[in-house]
């Protein structure tokens, strides 16, 4: 196995909610990400799924050090990012990029498409001549499927899908090794979603990019990912290579998510076991004791309330955190 590009170890991001009042009012800690570990290999896509509010975006931003960490390590090619001085960290940002959910909001309305795409380039290569910057920007626009003669247009003159392409061009202009894609297609029309996903996959193949692909759409994640990680209330429930996660989900939560995804074949669709989640997502401010999923889990027992199950190996590339995981050898 190749050495990981990024190695995340017991990462925690906690937010303090409500500042201490005049009379020392209660302070709550929201554990948005609570002890996440995983490795990301070069050229790999890791899908990140989970319900709204389970900490996907927070995890993605914490990896890029856009948020302060509570504890844990993010090791990039052997270097601990938390140990880097701010200037060294800025230098590192050339290697890792992010694409956002809302394509228009992620572009400065006062800058032209060309200025937006060029910004990371001129930040790291201030010596480049204007003509050369422009030529590279136009090459990048062509690469992501934009007309290069639109270079002087402003974001509000583009459609959502085109804005997302501008965001992608900005992300790849410095040839990074990792892009965190935070629900990059959720805000787009279905027909355009496929185009953007395929563009990302083409770019990945061409540039050897690693992607962390955040989404709550399991079908999309299945299409693009090599491995998939399932989060619930800031904790990893299951992480496995794509085929084994979709064909053989072991965690009750993954099974529930999976059974909600429609399958094109009506026979399989009808025969599929249906696991319906009961209840709502508990408040992240006050998560259940033990396994966070136990309030909604059909298999929950006494032990689940007492201690959090550890993430354990259940296959060649399959880890699951459940006391009663449906192990492949005992059906």
């Amino acid at each position, binding site marked *: 196995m190749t050495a990981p590009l990024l190695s995340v170890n017991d990462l925690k991001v906690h937010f303090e909610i409500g500042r201490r009042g005049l009379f020392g009012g209660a302070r709550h800690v929201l554990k948005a990400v609570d002890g996440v570990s995983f490795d990301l290999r070069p050229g790999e896509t890791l899908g990140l799924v989970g319900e709204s509010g389970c900490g996907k975006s927070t995890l993605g931003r914490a990896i890029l050090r856009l948020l302060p960490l509570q504890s844990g390590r993010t090791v990039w090619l052997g270097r601990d990012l938390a140990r880097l001085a701010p200037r060294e960290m800025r230098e590192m*940002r050339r290697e890792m990029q992010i694409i956002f959910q809302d394509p228009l909001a992620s572009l400065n309305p006062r800058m*032209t498409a060309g200025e937006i795409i060029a910004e990371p380039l001129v930040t790291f290569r201030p010596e480049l001549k204007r003509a050369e910057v422009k030529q590279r920007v136009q090459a990048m626009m062509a690469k992501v499927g934009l*007309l290069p*003669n*639109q270079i002087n*247009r402003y974001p509000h003159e583009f459609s959502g899908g085109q804005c997302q392409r501008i965001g992608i061009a900005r992300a790849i202009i410095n040839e990074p090794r990792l892009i965190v894609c935070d629900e990059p297609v959720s805000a787009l029309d279905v027909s355009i979603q496929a185009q953007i996903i395929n563009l990302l996959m083409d770019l990945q193949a061409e540039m050897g990019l690693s992607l962390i692909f955040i989404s709550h759409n399991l079908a999309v994640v299945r299409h693009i990912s090599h491995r998939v990680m399932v989060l619930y209330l800031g904790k990893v429930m299951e992480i496995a290579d794509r085929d084994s996660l979709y064909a053989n989900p072991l965690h009750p939560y993954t099974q529930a998510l999976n059974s909600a995804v429609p399958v094109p074949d009506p026979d399989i669709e009808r025969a599929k076991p249906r696991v319906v989640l009961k209840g709502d997502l508990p408040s992240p401010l006050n998560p259940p004791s033990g396994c966070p999923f136990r309030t909604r889990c059909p298999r929950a027992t006494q032990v689940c309330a007492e201690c959090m199950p550890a993430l354990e190996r259940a296959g060649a590339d399959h880890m699951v955190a459940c006391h009663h995981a449906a192990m492949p050898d005992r059906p």
Partner: protein
Amino acid sequence: MTDAAMVSPRGEVKGRSLWADARRRFLRNRAAVAGLVVLAVVTLLSFGAPFLGLRAPDDINWDMISAPPDYAQGYYFGTDQNGRDLFVRTLYGGQVSLMVGLVATLVSLVIGTLWGASAGYLGGRIDNVMMRIVDILYSIPFVFFVILLTVAIPRNFIAPTMLMYLAIGAVSWLDMARIVRGQTVSIRRKEFIEAAHASGVSSWHIITRHIIPNCLGPVVVYMTLTVPAVILTESFISYLGMGVQEPDSSWGTLISEGVNAMEVAPWAVIYPSGVMVVTLLALNFVGDGLRDALDPKDR
């Protein structure tokens, strides 16, 4: 919109920036354009007065003491108690009043926006310290501050007019800093700021390239409100005898002298205050026009 018309010779499509849109909307607003024209005329006449072949502002005509307007002799606004041409004095006075407006504008544009944007973007303790400094300066009564400056800086070291510019400059950026900080705090959470941060853009460039251009709407509008306020402040300081000194004039000093002689020479107050009112009205129209042109709800 015809795309073909907007293609430049190199085949690149010209973009319509938000600024260009705002300019188009502004130019369609007749009152605002008229205001702009009036402002331009007043400014040109005031600063061009030395080159118009008029009398000198301290030229005394002993035959025309407190005389009403006399077009035949070229005394369009009449004369004051010293027999000086009020039209000329009003134009020269405009230099001071408009300069005060300009100084306040520049200081609040440069210091106010940078200060407010830095505080809002950097946040935390830096924000706290920076805004407390603003609060402290704000809490000093303005007249007390001017007196303090007058006492602290010897007269032969700096002219009283300069001192007034200094005093007005020192306080005129405070409101702007607060406004820009408020804007910044809301813009800071936008994703394009995070994208810039993730791209390794420095804080300085995030502030100057991303934050300030996106709060210029309220800044420009606030600007047009500041100018009338400081022109009035200048009148006040000069009235207290700390700003413009005889024989120089400003609109403020002309009006206060005119008020004293109102019963015998009403033109001495009517004409200078008329010019000032017209100018302030023009500024207000321009401000209204800018607000409508830059209104984000209209985008």
